[in-house]
């Protein structure tokens, strides 16, 4: 029998939690080392996915299927395609780095913190692998709790409770509508075929009338749009990011936001393709507003974390714009941009976290001239900044270029407005960089700041490796998603072709 590698990935961190429970709470070093070990093993476990992944097919791979509650049509189905492959690997790749980043940052309730991290890891991987709607929903909700705790318990004391509750309620609100939609889908499938099931691949086969697709798309879409976050559902993000501890911000930006975009790809679009086409104008416009609005608001931010949070709104706008092109370039770009954003923005939050550990402030005005005491930090910060503003040769460019290329095919005006976001990105990032890093050291507290330690450099090394790799040789990654994308686009094309007849059906029903 083949090793159930996907289940292993989901449950190994749970085993790790069980182990942590028995470790002495006082021994921080042991707790952190153990978690690091677990995260590294988990990363090792995920590597076979990469090497054994068949990039010629769009079919789900490494599938696992067990009945769970057969009387309700609930099963435990896991599978992986090109889209989820990259996201799962991003998760397992970043978690060990996050653990490393807690070394000096987290000194209170270390045990609980590590448990939260592992629970989060398990939940996130589950979300990306679940192919049963019920199972998916379970993971989706499970993962909320550790994140809520990360912000609420280890966050910045002043406003952490506000931020945590805002995060929780916002997401919960979206999720509830999604739950309703999932149930509707479940009953509809039962009504039409006589089989009650949450099996996503079976639900894909449904021909749902347009009026129903319309509402279902909105219900799912709201949950995911909040998660992305799309304008105007983004206001939870700056608060959550600002108040969360460094690692919380990293995971939030790098992985959690991707659940929203992934949700569109995995659920919204293939389940409700006609509605998806119908909503292209709305979502594309919202995405472009997000790009420009996020970038403009970034320019005037005074708090580093808030600035990066708003830049996420802008970057995720690019991703959404790409996904809603429904052409190969846009979607390839969108997916690769999810990974890029994970790497660059993740790295940016690490960067801010490290300076916060040294100075206990995130306000841009408190810095200036840091290049002189911290040259290594300056170099890394610069490279990540350039990656974030999409300099060719680094990862960000590949994603943005493909997205804009794909968008330009569908809508020249939107592509032009979106491309202006590239200019604003240079404005806000370079201005921020200048104010923090350049000039003379004016604040005596910054005079003797220690440069990065070996551990800190070690956190960045792998991130920089992939930032350059994706920039110089993106084929490694684009090839893995090519088949999935092509298949996805072909399916959507089909829906586009049949859209007319279906809407006629809908009209007939309406009469």
């Amino acid at each position, binding site marked *: 029998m083949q090793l159930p590698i996907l289940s292993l990935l989901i449950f190994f961190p749970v085993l790790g939690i069980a182990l942590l429970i028995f470790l002495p709470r006082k021994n921080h070093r042991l707790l952190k080392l153990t978690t690091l070990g677990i995260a590294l093993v988990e990363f090792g476990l995920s590597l076979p996915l990469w090497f054994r992944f068949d990039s010629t097919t769009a079919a789900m791979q490494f599938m696992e299927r067990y009945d769970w509650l057969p009387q309700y049509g609930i099963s435990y189905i896991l599978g992986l395609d090109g889209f989820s492959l990259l996201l799962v690997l991003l998760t397992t790749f970043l978690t060990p780095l996050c653990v490393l980043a807690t070394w000096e940052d987290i000194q209170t309730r270390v045990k609980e913190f590590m448990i939260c991290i592992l629970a989060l890891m398990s939940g996130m991987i589950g979300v990306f692998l679940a192919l049963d709607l019920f199972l998916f929903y379970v993971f989706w909700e499970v993962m909320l709790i550790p994140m809520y705790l990360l912000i609420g318990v280890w966050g910045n004391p002043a406003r952490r409770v506000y931020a945590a509750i805002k995060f929780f309620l916002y997401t919960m609100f979206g999720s509830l509508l999604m739950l309703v939609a999932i149930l509707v889908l479940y009953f509809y499938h039962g009504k039409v075929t006589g089989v009650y099931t949450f099996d996503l691949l079976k639900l894909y086969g449904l021909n749902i009338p347009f009026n129903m697709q319309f509402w279902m798309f909105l219900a799912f879409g709201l949950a995911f749009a909040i998660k992305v976050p799309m304008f105007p559902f983004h206001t939870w993000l700056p608060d959550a990011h600002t108040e969360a501890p460094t690692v919380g911000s990293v995971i939030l930006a790098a992985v959690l936001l991707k659940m929203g975009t992934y949700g569109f790809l995995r659920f919204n679009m293939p389940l409700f393709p006609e509605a998806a086409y119908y909503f292209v104008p709305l979502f594309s416009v919202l995405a472009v507003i997000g790009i420009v609005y996020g970038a403009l608001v970034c320019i005037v931010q005074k708090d580093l974390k808030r600035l990066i949070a708003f830049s996420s709104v802008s970057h995720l706008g690019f991703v959404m714009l790409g996904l809603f092109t429904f052409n190969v*370039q846009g979607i390839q770009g969108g997916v690769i941009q999810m990974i890029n954003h994970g790497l660059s923005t993740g790295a940016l939050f690490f960067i801010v976290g490290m300076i916060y550990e040294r100075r206990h402030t995130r306000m841009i005005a408190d810095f200036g001239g840091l*290049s002189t005491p911290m040259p290594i930090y300056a170099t890394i910060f610069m490279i990540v900044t350039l990656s974030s503003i999409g300099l060719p040769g680094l990862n960000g460019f590949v994603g943005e270029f493909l997205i804009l290329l794909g968008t330009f095919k569908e809508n020249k005006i939107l592509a032009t407005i979106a491309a202006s976001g590239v200019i604003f990105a240079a404005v806000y990032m370079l201005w921020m960089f200048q104010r923090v890093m350049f*000039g003379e050291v004016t604040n005596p507290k910054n005079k003797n700041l220690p440069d990065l330690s070996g551990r800190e450099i070690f956190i960045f090394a792998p991130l920089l490796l992939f930032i350059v790799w994706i920039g110089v040789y*993106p*084929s490694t990654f684009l090839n893995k998603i090519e088949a999935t994308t*092509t298949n996805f686009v072909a399916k959507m094309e089909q829906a586009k072709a049949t859209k007319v007849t279906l809407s006629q059906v809908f009209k007939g029903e309406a009469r």
Partner: protein
Amino acid sequence: MIQYVWLIPVFPLMGFLINGLYGKRLPKNLVGTIGAGVIGLSFALTVAIFLEFLKLPAASRPVEIVVYNWIAAGKFSVPIGFLVDPLSLIMLLVVSGVSFLIHIYSVGYMHDDPGFPRFFTYLNLFVFFMLILVGANNFLMMFVGWEGVGLCSYLLIGYWYEKQSASDAGKKAFVVNRIGDFGFLLGMFLLFWTFGTLNFREVFALAGRYPVGSGIITAATLLLFVGATGKSAQIPLYTWLPDAMEGPTPVSALIHAATMVTAGVYMVARCSALYALAPFSLTVVATIGALTAIFAATMGMAQFDIKRVLAYSTVSQLGYMFLACGVGAFVAGIFHLMTHAFFKALLFLGAGSVSHAVSGELDMRRMGGLKDHIPITYRTFLIATLAIAGIFPFAGFFSKDEILFHALVDGNYFYWGIGTVAAFITAFYMFRAVYMVFFGESRVDPHVAHHVHESPPLMTVPLMILAFLSIVGGFVGFPIIEGGHKFKEFLSPSITPVGHGGHPPVSLEIGLMAFSMAVAAIGIYTAYKLYMLRPDLPGWLAEKFRVPYDLIYNKYYVDQIYDTIVVEPIKSGSTLLWTQVDDKVVDGAVNGSASTVAWLSAHLRRLETGFLQNYALAIVLGVTLVVGYLLG
């Protein structure tokens, strides 16, 4: 050899990596040797490839070398690939050759700077991107170089990052360039979705099927030209270049005079096949070029910072090159690009050598009489000045004359007239600089005056080589003599000419040359009169013509205007978006609904029994109702 063309940019990349990672631990001499040596290797390889290319039969030219497939998605596929043709070879030779000389000079010039390894790291990276830009066989890879050189320009302008003005200037350069790049990007999208490829030769071949004046090609060429106005500092995006003088002088020589800023001209010439199909775009190119040429020249008249004089002169000369392209004389544009690279690099390096002699001073009002103290610098600077003023037989004479000649014989009297006036102004302000710096009474600070010294050989030898090139560089394009125009013959396979009928009489050509010389001579004499014979006159004139003088002196207030109509509105608009829209409207709605709920729940709290079953029941009921409604 040709198949190793990809090594040309790889050498500087290696220099970048070595000096970037280990530069701080290596001895200074080694850092300098590596930094300059890798460029020497690139230059040597370029020469070898050039010689081999000359031997190739016409049928096997040009050569395309594909290294690997870079970005592919669906039917979009773009390689990292090189196009070896006459145009790219000329550019590779100029870029690697001039860079090599400037690197050697920099070893001397930057010797006492604590950031020595960092300087060479950036400079090598710049050459890498520049070689990528000119070697690329497709638009996207050219764009990589295009943005890459912009990055290095940013890093090097802000090299002395502790200085606020330097880091401001760097940021300004990057952002303004990005505005141009935005146009380039859209131009590429349009080309790709029109032709299905971004490969130069494929695009140009397919474009041949479109009629002259086709809307799509006009749009694409205009968008690409937006990119060129950014990179090559043309109206309206030229404002970053004068500020870029904050960078070390070798940087100004290499990036902001000889190579990077000419990228726009190279791009337009490279796309001559497209521009030839878009007469409207050509008119735009020529007009912008002509206006920039004269506009920048006037600003050059009233500057006192020697590097700023040269900066405006660069903007103006770039305008000439675009003027050439715009009237269809792409070859003349590239010819001027080459000679300009020699004499303008020389002028900047000379200015560097001057400021080296007077302890970093750049203000010409505190120079004067330096001729005998720094003779090599003086002589080479004078040669370059004669070249830029367009005096026979210096290099600039031939290239500038060819541009004006083309404008005239094509009946573009307007462009010819502007070009001629700009030539007059150029001769004037350049000799104004020469007189202010090298002649007359010394106005040097007395503390500095006693140790004015000539620069070391590491700096003067590059000056002399460039001076040599500024003298002979023009002979490859000798008009009149049959077969004298080797440059044009060599370059013509890469260029799609925009036809003008018949060959004009030799007498016209000679007459025009004499006329240009006379114009330049008058310009020089005017400078002589004002700055040697009657040094009191400039001040008097400035008083007399207060308003126009202030206008020029303050650079027509363009920076202030941009600040008022673009920068400030964006800043205040963004603040408004953040504090009003985001905090009050969007988040206000969210928190508003939250407080509504809170108010409601305060009243509905009696329903809160605390029993989980009751809640569960309520949820099940609610969900069932909704589901039932939707399915019913």
